[in-house]
């Protein structure tokens, strides 16, 4: 096996599992350390560089970082990364004068951004301080996109959203509300240097079962219904409500129903719980509010009486599941009618572009989805870019933010005639964490505390109004414990082979036995030696050691980054070094190779 190249920025980036899993590559351990030091404003700004909306995402992010957290491989529960992000947002001091400013001079380039959601706002966030004149067009009369229309206010308070959108508007971004773009061709004639489409996936899927057309009212499309609630067009619902589908939108629908007067809310799932799309924590929050989640019920028909919806028929399903958890067979056991007053359909959504003419130069594929370059986010029409859900279908906010960053880079390069496909590569900078004998500038001791539980507002209080935020945020004690749970995976074990005296001290002290010194061999053989079973995680291999010619190997999978190897090393061959991943957003991109 070849020696590991630790200068490759991706090598140690992958070791920081949370950062690698985050679409926007938020430097999680670094901001958690700032929180631990009480530097909430600094933590907020560090977050903001990559994910732009720490206050929003600290509440409603899909948290791809948490399942990836190293802690889940050492014990059960990941660090409450998302909640700590909210801590940074909640406790920050006034940071407005530290935000990127509106430039004194425009660079003369005008960018049209369609849809005022996270993708467009991220593009504006990156480009406006560089001198671009950004105009956001929004068909509704409030900005935020799905963050406003689909996420209920009891999960994301309006003022949190508006404050973070406001930061970007302060950079001189022009927001046009109630300004639906009806024609792409028309917009193309208006002299913009580039156009960005961030209109999301606004079309909720319908369920065309028998009886669907007979019901004059009582059947709602989930995301449309949530939007109507958010904009005060709907303020009531029947007593018995069925939600069809079991994704995160379904969770928002059922909990919103409870706040609009529903007495009994059932979420109807076609499959067993292991197949649910909703995040586990969203399911828990719904169940805490006494939402009934019924499994193995496949919708069959709508039941109406004189044009009024009175219930739904379901096939009760039975599934055979094999050892790997896959369904191998299914059959209908019986059918059942469940009475209800309203049905909310939350079975998915898709993007739709009725306003883009077929001859606008933008190619659509056979599913009527625009053809987008996955790296540059450019459509087949030069100068028109897509991002967020409108690019590749429904994902989530943090993906929309990353799309926005990437599209901003493309727009910047496009406006300067540079090659879009050439992106400045990530870099990594190392800084030793050593402060002295057994002293590091990070909290290296392993803390075995369990994950802190987010406190919720009492059930009796939370349904009084639609916009009472349920989660209370972490207390000072919870913060103090939770920050210590972070393993500081970005403080890397950096090995200097020529210094090693092969004394084995590091191997003996390692609490998870992830090190060994062994003759060079194939990767499979070396992995066996340290029981490195997880092929998704790298195996570090050093250059040959000077005394015996053997190599130092390390399983990156379960290393706790506790630094004991470096503390026991008599020659400092092991050192703990913070690796700062430099990710280049639009303003740091080189426009030409010579630059």
């Amino acid at each position, binding site marked *: 096996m070849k020696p590991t190249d630790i200068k490759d920025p991706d090598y140690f980036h992958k070791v920081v599992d949370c950062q690698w899993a985050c679409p926007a590559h938020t430097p999680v351990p670094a901001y958690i350390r700032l929180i631990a030091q009480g530097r909430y404003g600094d933590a907020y700004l560090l977050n903001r560089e990559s994910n732009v909306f720490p206050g929003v995402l600290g509440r409603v992010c899909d948290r791809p970082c948490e399942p990836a957290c190293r802690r889940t491989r050492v014990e059960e529960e990941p660090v409450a990364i998302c909640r700590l992000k909210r801590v940074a947002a909640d406790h920050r001091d006034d940071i407005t004068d530290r935000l990127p400013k509106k430039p004194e001079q425009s660079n003369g380039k005008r960018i049209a951004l369609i849809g005022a959601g996270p993708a467009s706002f991220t593009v504006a966030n990156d480009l406006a301080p560089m001198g671009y004149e950004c105009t956001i067009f929004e068909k509704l009369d409030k900005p935020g996109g799905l963050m406003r229309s689909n996420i209920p206010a009891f999960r994301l308070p309006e003022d949190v959203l508006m404050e973070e959108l406001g930061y970007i508007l302060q950079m001189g971004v022009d927001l046009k509300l109630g300004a639906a773009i009806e024609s792409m061709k028309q917009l193309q004639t208006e002299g913009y240097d580039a156009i960005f489409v961030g209109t999301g996936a606004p079309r909720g899927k319908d369920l065309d079962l028998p009886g669907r057309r007979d019901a004059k009212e009582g059947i709602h499309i989930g995301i449309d219904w949530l939007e109507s609630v958010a904009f005060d067009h709907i303020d009531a619902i029947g007593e018995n409500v069925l939600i069809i589908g079991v994704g995160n939108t379904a969770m928002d629908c059922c909990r919103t129903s409870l706040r609009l007067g529903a007495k009994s809310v059932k979420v109807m799932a076609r499959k067993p719980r292991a197949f649910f799309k909703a995040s586990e924590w969203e399911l828990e929050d719904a169940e805490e509010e006494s939402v009934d989640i019924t499994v193995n019920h496949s919708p069959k028909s709508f039941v109406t009486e004189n044009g009024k919806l009175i219930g739904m028929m379901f096939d009760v399903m039975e599934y055979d599941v094999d050892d790997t958890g896959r369904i191998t067979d299914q059959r209908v056991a019986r059918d059942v009618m469940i009475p209800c007053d309203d049905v909310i359909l939350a079975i998915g959504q898709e993007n739709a572009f009725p306003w883009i003419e077929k001859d606008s130069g933008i190619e659509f594929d056979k599913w009527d989805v625009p053809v987008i370059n996955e790296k540059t986010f450019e459509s087949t029409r030069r100068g028109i870019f897509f991002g967020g859900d409108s690019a590749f279908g429904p994902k989530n906010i943090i993906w929309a933010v990353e799309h926005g960053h990437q599209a901003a880079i493309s727009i910047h390069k496009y406006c300067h005639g540079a090659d879009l496909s050439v992106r400045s590569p990530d870099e990594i900078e190392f800084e030793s964490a050593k402060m002295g004998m057994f002293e590091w500038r990070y909290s290296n*001791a392993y803390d075995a505390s369990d994950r802190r539980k987010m406190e919720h507002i009492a059930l009796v209080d939370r349904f009084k109004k639609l916009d009472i935020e349920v989660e209370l945020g972490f207390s000072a004690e919870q913060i103090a414990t939770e920050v210590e749970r972070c393993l500081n995976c970005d403080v890397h074990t950096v090995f200097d082979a020529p210094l090693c005296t092969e004394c084995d*001290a590091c191997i*003996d002290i390692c609490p998870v036995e992830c090190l060994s010194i062994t003759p060079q061999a194939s990767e499979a053989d070396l992995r066996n030696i340290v029981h490195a079973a997880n092929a998704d995680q790298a195996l570090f291999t050093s250059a040959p050691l000077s005394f015996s010619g053997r190599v130092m190997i390390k399983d990156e999978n379960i290393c*706790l980054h506790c630094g004991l190897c470096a503390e026991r090393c008599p020659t400092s061959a092991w050192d703990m070094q913070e690796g700062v991943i430099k990710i280049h957003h639009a303003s740091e991109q080189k426009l030409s190779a010579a630059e």
Partner: protein
Amino acid sequence: MTSFVKPKIRRKQEPVNTLGMVRADYDGTASTLCAGCGHDSVNAALARAFFELSVEPHMAVKVSGIGCSSKSPTYFMSDAHGANTVHGRMPAFATGAVAANSDLTYIGISGDGDSLSIGLGQMAHAIRRNVNMLYMLYNNGVYGLTKGQFSASADIGSVAKKGGANELPPIDPAALALATGATFVARSFSGDREQLIPLIKAGLRHTGFAVIDVISPCVTFNDHKGSTKSYAHTYKYFHPAVHADFVPPSEEIITAYEEGELMPVEMHDGSRIRLRKLDSDYDPRDRAGAFAKVLEGQSKDEILTGLLYINEDLPDMHARKNTGPRPLNQIPYSELNPGAAKLKDLQRSFR
């Protein structure tokens, strides 16, 4: 020392032994030896060997004398019995303990100072009695605890940290053990756990006195240029002669023997040692040949390692005294003490 104690973490899919215990269950308290000390590696190898042999810690006894090496019992297998005894007097203490309870697994830990200077006579007589124990001699050529004076194992010409060269000839523990009749003599190196761990396992399962002379560099006082017990020197002159694979009783030997390998040595408990010859003309079952080889190694500045000599056929102390299978400490006092009348009979027989 480290800033905090190695945390106990039960990993997912962590290997367990037949007792269901993990390797960390054989750890001791945090080591206060210098960072990089060879002794820590040997202690880790001991913990690993006890773990792999599935020895219940409460069925093991660790005894030691005085010195850096003798601090070691604290640093592995906390749940075992043990005592830190008097300087050089560990063999007498161990002999008494072995005599009292033959059911336990005994390990004595000593150093070149403890064994070859003040305790030389003690060690020799424990060997002579063939006490059933594993005697680990952590050999670094210096008195580390008193800041690095030469010990009796220092080689002629080896240079001290402050520059003085040693003039007295060394006592070679392996040659000493062979000369005094040890039935299991091995030499190894703290830096080679692939060699050391099987040797420890074999030594623990050997019936009789097993000595492992393990070169264990003193990182603070004897790891410099000119030292013949440094990591650099040991790695350079390290010469494995016979590799011993330990095969527990439950495992069938299915690998065919390649040419140049020796037949397996059967142990009393049914386990076997598979010897792999690395030197073509070496048979560790031949005491005279082993002795010659050790002396030859000395003259060539070669650190001859591996299982140098083994004899499973000589009776250990209990067999020689015919004490029977029941440990003495489990025999009721009334039975153990035949009474005044029987004593009188005995005395009469001598008149």
